């Protein structure tokens, strides 16, 4: 079982977000990147599958600030192969471009399973999983929270809105969008990460031209602006309730 996990690095929202002078992107000098949370679950799911049934886990990440820490941490958790995708991954890179580039790297690896985080907060042009599945010509199931490997297929638990879940069989190889791993991502002691920094190797692969075609062009990026659209109802609770009912009637809700 060869599992490939392509991950995204996304802006860390703990740090202040600054828009760069172009007004269409974040300022690259102040943004701090981190592993997309759902991709952390995809890595965990891959390692859980390896621990249960054996296998080989490859983690791919674009060469951006903090990428080495992300890859070495994955190695400390149990990933076998680390690949850094080298090119000028500027702010302009969208998921279409990433998916095309990643697909070219993944094809020769001939994986049985590709696990991606189901979404990320920096997705502007759809999530990575379906795009990647499209370029690889593989089936895709998203919103997956639970994976069991069978003979030539995987049984996955897919979550739907409204508290519904379904079990689906998907023929391998396939791409899955992981919503949550079977278990929360594990903690890895810092001594293990340091050990991985000494023993694991990060391979570098140069990707061909990044083609952003198919994604939207950002016309303007801005922080939420304050607008006075809310009306505050004053008075005693009974009065407020009456006003509210009157308003609902007026709007045709009641």
């Amino acid at each position, binding site marked *: 079982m060869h599992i490939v996990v392509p991950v995204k690095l996304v802006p860390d929202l703990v740090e*202040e977000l600054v828009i760069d002078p172009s007004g269409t992107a974040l300022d690259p000098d102040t943004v701090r990147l981190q592993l997309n949370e759902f991709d952390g679950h995809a890595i965990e799911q891959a390692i859980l599958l390896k621990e249960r049934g054996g296998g080989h886990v490859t983690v791919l990440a674009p060469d951006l600030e903090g990428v080495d820490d992300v890859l070495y941490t994955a190695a400390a958790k149990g990933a076998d192969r680390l690949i850094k995708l080298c090119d000028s991954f500027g702010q302009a890179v969208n998921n279409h471009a990433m998916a095309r580039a990643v697909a070219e790297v993944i094809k020769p690896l001939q994986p049985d399973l590709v696990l991606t985080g189901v979404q990320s907060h920096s997705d502007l042009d759809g999530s990575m999983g379906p795009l990647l599945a499209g370029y690889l010509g593989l089936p895709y199931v998203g919103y997956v929270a639970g994976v069991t490997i069978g003979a030539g297929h995987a049984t996955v638990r897919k979550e739907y809105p409204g508290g519904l879940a379904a079990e689906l069989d998907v023929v391998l190889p396939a791409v899955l969008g992981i919503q949550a791993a079977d278990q929360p991502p594990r903690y890895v002691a810092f001594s293990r990460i340091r050990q991985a920094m000494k023993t694991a190797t990060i391979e570098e692969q140069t990707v061909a031209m990044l083609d952003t075609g198919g994604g939207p062009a950002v016309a303007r990026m801005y922080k939420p602006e304050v607008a006075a659209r809310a009306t505050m109802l004053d008075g005693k609770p009974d009065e407020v309730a009456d006003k509210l009912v009157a308003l609902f009637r007026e709007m045709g809700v009641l």
Partner: protein
Amino acid sequence: MMATVPQSSATFSKSFYASLHEISGGEKVRTCLQCGTCNGVCPFGYLMDYPPGKMIAALRAQRFERVTEADTVWMCVSCYACSQVCPVRIPLTAGLMTRAKEELLLAGNIPSELQIALENTQRYGNPLGESPRKRADWAKGVKPRVPIMSEERRPVDVLWFVGDYGSYHPRVQPVSRALANVFNALHVDFGILGAEEVSDGDSQRLAGERGLFEMLAAKNGRALSQYEFKEIVTGDPHAYNAFKNEYPRLGISYPVRHYTEFLAERLDALKPLLKHEVNARVTYHDPCYLGRANGVFEAPRQLLSAIPGVELVEMPHNRTTSLCCGGGGGGMWMDGFQWEKAHIRLSEWRVREAMKVGADILAVACPYEAPRFEDATKTVPGAGRLIVRDIAELLAEAMGD
């Protein structure tokens, strides 16, 4: 893949037992009498599967793997109560319990709340998960302004290590501002590291994360080595413990004092500034890492007694028998876990004691305590009138701040 190599029970017990000998005084574990005093004095000993004495018994029976399978070792708040009462002075807190937590952590047996705090520390350099760039934001508005070493580029007398909670916690930031005002009033020549400071890491170390502690120590060591100062002063007893007892072993050696020691030495200059009466019955809570672990008992009391109007009263548990607030050894980040196991809060026990001696104010000297005890005053019936104040806040108040 670097998982723990499965070891036979006997081998694991033996290698763990041997590792205890590497700690200062660790060989004394051989002299354990199995008197059980440690188990009895431990604030959570009654619900631990393996309180210290029983853990030693499990080691001797070569059944240590059972210790790492249980999760109640995480109830240890590293308060030094067991180490204090051990008749043969076995380093139970610094050695046995901390080493056991290291093994639990490596085995992946770790409460999720603790995991979050440790991951935050790895990424942001503080367990609260706050932006490292905002570490000095608490000092905005303090006048004269708080000097940041990277901007000052001049030698100072005192390098003030502010610590995580003093830098970020909304209840403790005012304590830092109060201390800055006291320093300014005394014309102390001081500076802080600001964004170059990271967590001292001591509580992470006591929660089993030695590697993370060493990484943090190296970062602080590098930051400190750029500047000239005569001593480090800190408001955080955990940072104090790290600088005094742990960093020197990693080659980071500076004289360090808790701010209460630093100010007690300046009582003559301080006293004339304390013009406003604080008419209150005040009781003082000895923080584990200032008191029991490091023997500083009198300086905080001297400062409180110097405040006009203060009547200082002692709680039954004081000095070496002080009660833990529940925040040590990673407890600060495991409130939910502790509650799930114990259905009590150690901080409530302390607040009830303060009420019993008729205190109006519970005075503290550790950044974990103001938030913990203040929370407890909200849940202990009738404790709403008890005021929790750091000594620095009381001094600033007496100065008319």
